[in-house]
């Protein structure tokens, strides 16, 4: 069976597929096939180099014989080195440490507690008003008290005067020689000035 016959079989079964252009709709970078050959040659050259056993390098005598034990020793040493790192720190510890130290030293300022005497302005003004009222009341009462004392003192002295006999007064006056030097007229005027007519009439 040739190609044409082979194709006719399926083209009859799938006419839509057969009608489509049989081209691959992919593209390649510019000049891809132009440089492809040199690329393959480079790869072949490099592979050839890699496959060569002797590339001009040498190793010390007995290197490969001792290599196994050297690797095992290295593994043992590394396992001991890793044991020292048994202690761990939380994640990102050292990244945060610097900032934490600074916040507790340079950045930290003593914070004073502020306690308000009054919780609000109303309390403040109410307290001031109460104080003023109390002070004024105190002053007023004090003043009133003083007046009372003065009046009572006056009353007391007046009463004392009423309680003293006129003969005593006369005698006192005679003793002090003040009255002897006074004339009758002067005495009379003194009595009239200091005693009422009622007093005079009553006591005389």
């Amino acid at each position: 069976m040739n190609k044409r016959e082979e194709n006719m079989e399926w083209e009859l079964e799938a006419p839509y597929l057969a009608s489509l252009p049989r081209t691959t709709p992919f593209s390649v970078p510019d000049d891809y096939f132009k440089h492809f050959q040199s690329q393959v040659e480079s790869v072949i050259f490099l592979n050839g180099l890699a496959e060569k056993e002797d590339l001009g390098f040498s190793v010390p005598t007995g290197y490969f014989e001792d290599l196994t034990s050297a690797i095992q020793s290295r593994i043992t040493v590394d396992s001991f080195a890793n044991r020292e790192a048994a202690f761990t720190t939380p994640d990102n510890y050292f990244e945060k440490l610097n900032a934490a130290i600074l916040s507790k030293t340079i950045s930290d300022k003593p914070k004073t507690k502020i306690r308000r005497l009054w919780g609000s302005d109303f309390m403040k003004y109410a307290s001031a008003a109460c104080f003023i009222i109390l002070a004024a009341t105190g002053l007023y009462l004090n003043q009133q008290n003083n007046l009372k004392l003065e009046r009572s003192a006056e009353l007391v002295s007046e009463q004392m005067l009423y309680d003293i006999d006129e003969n005593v007064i006369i005698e006192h006056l005679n003793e002090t020689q003040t009255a002897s030097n006074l004339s009758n007229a002067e005495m009379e005027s003194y009595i009239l000035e200091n005693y009422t007519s009622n007093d005079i009439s009553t006591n005389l």
Partner: protein
Amino acid sequence: MKQVEDAEILQKFGIEKTRNEAFNLLITKYQQKIYWHVRRLVIDHDDADDLVQETFVKVWKNLANFRSDSQLYTWIYRIATNESITFLNKKKLKNNISLDDVSSELADSLASSSYFDGDKAQRKLQEAILTLPEKQRIIFNMKYFDDMKYDEISEVLGTSVGALKASFHIAVKKIESILINND
């Protein structure tokens, strides 16, 4: 440019002085065919580039042992196909995904590829082809795009002609159905 015959290439390759010249002739003759065959399988240009280079490196290493019991073209094709299948299998194992997911990845690569020149119908066709099982997809590509005979495909894949015919017909019916239903 006149195509050099395979026999001439093989002859020149056998002589050390002309080996490089023969290899250059071989690359010039087959690079595009092999490239497009691989590209249709792996979709991505960079992946195809790596695989095609690897193919020709293997050709260089083994051409001296080529026994001419098959055509040079089918022998190179076989190397390229095996490289592509190995690549796709490695992709599956590497990402721990199933074959369906590999096809899905290739479809994503197709959708995002900057090296796609086709129209809407061609994109649909490529997407439909990606729904086929791996081996069926290879058979379809070789028959539909490369227009290879079943005998040649059999040489490449080591599968009987009968099995190839059956597989190709199933693929054609499936793709036709997808294209018509999604149109």
